[in-house]
């Protein structure tokens, strides 16, 4: 059970890499569609460069992938991704965002952070979010692979962050077509793409526990057409319906029987 081993690694180490989910031709196809989506985004007036997240203009950011192409609507609910998300967060999660970051040669690192730590106050005892990173290119140190601090998902208080934390970060290495799965508590940063000519295209499927507000407001940004294409399960995962953050109250209902 290869997948079971990956789940165990995710729970214990805070990350895992699952190779060959897409074949190389499939990964190439997704990358082509991604560039088309970037063009379409620009055509709609939604800029993909210098949007304030990166140190310079060598990163291409594509938002709202779900609206732009059906291929992304397939990837975000890929059974294997959902399986790993469920293993870490349990079944009660929402799709928070699905965006792309294409690092072109010359792109620089972001600041060290954990996805959970920049949003929710300490302490961080449990994983409340997870990143499923689709690699459309081979990633390594040279082209700006994400760098992470091993074991940092066990950091519960900011004061536990080691001195010279950034120096302890190591790069993920993965082939195109893999996913890199990361507990929301792992401290990491994007690497710098110091290659001469290699692009590094990644898709970030971000999922969080349902009581956390999603990064993307799906109700406000998906077209009626796109929404109509979703199963009721997808609608629920996107938080489009009236399910709200009172699910944890459900155990209290057992007391309904008390007269």
């Amino acid at each position: 059970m290869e997948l079971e081993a990956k789940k165990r690694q995710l729970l214990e180490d805070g990350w895992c890499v699952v190779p060959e989910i897409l074949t190389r031709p499939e990964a190439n196809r997704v990358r082509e569609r991604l560039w088309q989506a970037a063009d379409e985004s620009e055509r709609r007036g939604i800029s993909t460069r210098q949007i304030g997240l990166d140190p310079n203009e060598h990163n291409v950011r594509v938002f709202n992938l779900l609206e732009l192409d059906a291929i992304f609507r397939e990837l975000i609910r890929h059974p294997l991704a959902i399986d790993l998300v469920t293993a870490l967060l349990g079944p009660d999660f929402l799709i928070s965002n699905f965006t792309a970051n294409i690092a072109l040669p010359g792109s620089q690192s972001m600041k060290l952070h954990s996805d959970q730590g920049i949003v929710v106050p300490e302490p961080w005892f449990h994983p409340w979010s997870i990143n499923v990173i689709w690699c459309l290119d081979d990633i390594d140190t040279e082209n700006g692979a994400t760098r992470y601090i091993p074991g940092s998902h066990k950091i519960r208080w900011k004061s536990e962050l080691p001195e010279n934390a950034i120096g302890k970060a190591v790069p993920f290495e993965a082939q195109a077509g893999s996913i890199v799965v990361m507990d929301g508590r792992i401290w990491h940063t994007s690497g710098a793409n110091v290659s001469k000519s290699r692009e590094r295209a990644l898709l970030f499927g971000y999922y969080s526990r349902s009581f956390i507000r999603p990064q993307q407001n799906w109700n406000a940004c998906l077209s009626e057409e796109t929404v109509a294409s979703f199963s009721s399960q997808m609608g629920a995962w996107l938080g489009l319906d009236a399910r709200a953050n009172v699910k944890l109250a459900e155990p209290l209902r057992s007391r309904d029987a008390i007269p």
Partner: protein
Amino acid sequence: MDTIAADHARMGRPIPTQDPVQAQKDIKAFGLCIVPYVLAADKLARVRDALYRAADEDRARGWEQKFRFDYAHDDTNQRVWNLLSRDPVFADLVEHALALDLVKSVIGWPALLGNISANITGPGGGEMVLHADQIFVPEPWPANPQGVNVAWCIDDFTDENGATRFVPGSHLRNRSPAADEAATASIPLEAPAGSFIVMESRVWHKTGRNRTKHRRRAGIFAWYTRPIYRQQENWFLSLNPATRQFASDTMLVLLGYRTEGLGLVNGKSPA
């Protein structure tokens, strides 16, 4: 501390005050403050009429929705949801200057409006499971409260008619009550109609039992959270478009239309 204040402190609840500084101190010390006589008589009547009209309409049309914290066998207690869409007067409560200042003193700004709903206890009903409002945040909880409830008393809140009850000092425990703590001694929050009570999200509380023969007791609960939490009401699905169209800048922030970091559209705030 004067004698009256000392008496209140012994009972575990603060003396009602309209002084914002004292109210903030009360929230820290008691987990809540009571601000009396905020709504003038005509405004109170306007709010009360709008609420009972919506409640009666819901009941007549079979639109009522139970709340998960209530007892299923309770047929007299009534919840009215999404008040913002029922009458514009409820937006005035959400944005009331003093209430909002106290909200900001507890959870900062920007904040989100998770919901604004009414809880109307009826004769023989109303009792609720003891809980803290931030129950949805897994423990251990952060050091500070993650939400705050502003309870508007639309009728007098009395022990007899089911005033909200709370457990003194419970906010300092920084955790939810355990199953075997459901019966922890609680005391009623009595206040005249037109007052509001600001309760931070860690206070253990519940609706009281309405022991009157004929009287309903309405409270309107405006629930605010830090901006990282998902709102209880999905405003983008359910809000009356006119409320959005004429919303103030403050209201746009509270509803999540003007936002940073979370709840974005194409990387930008939707409004």
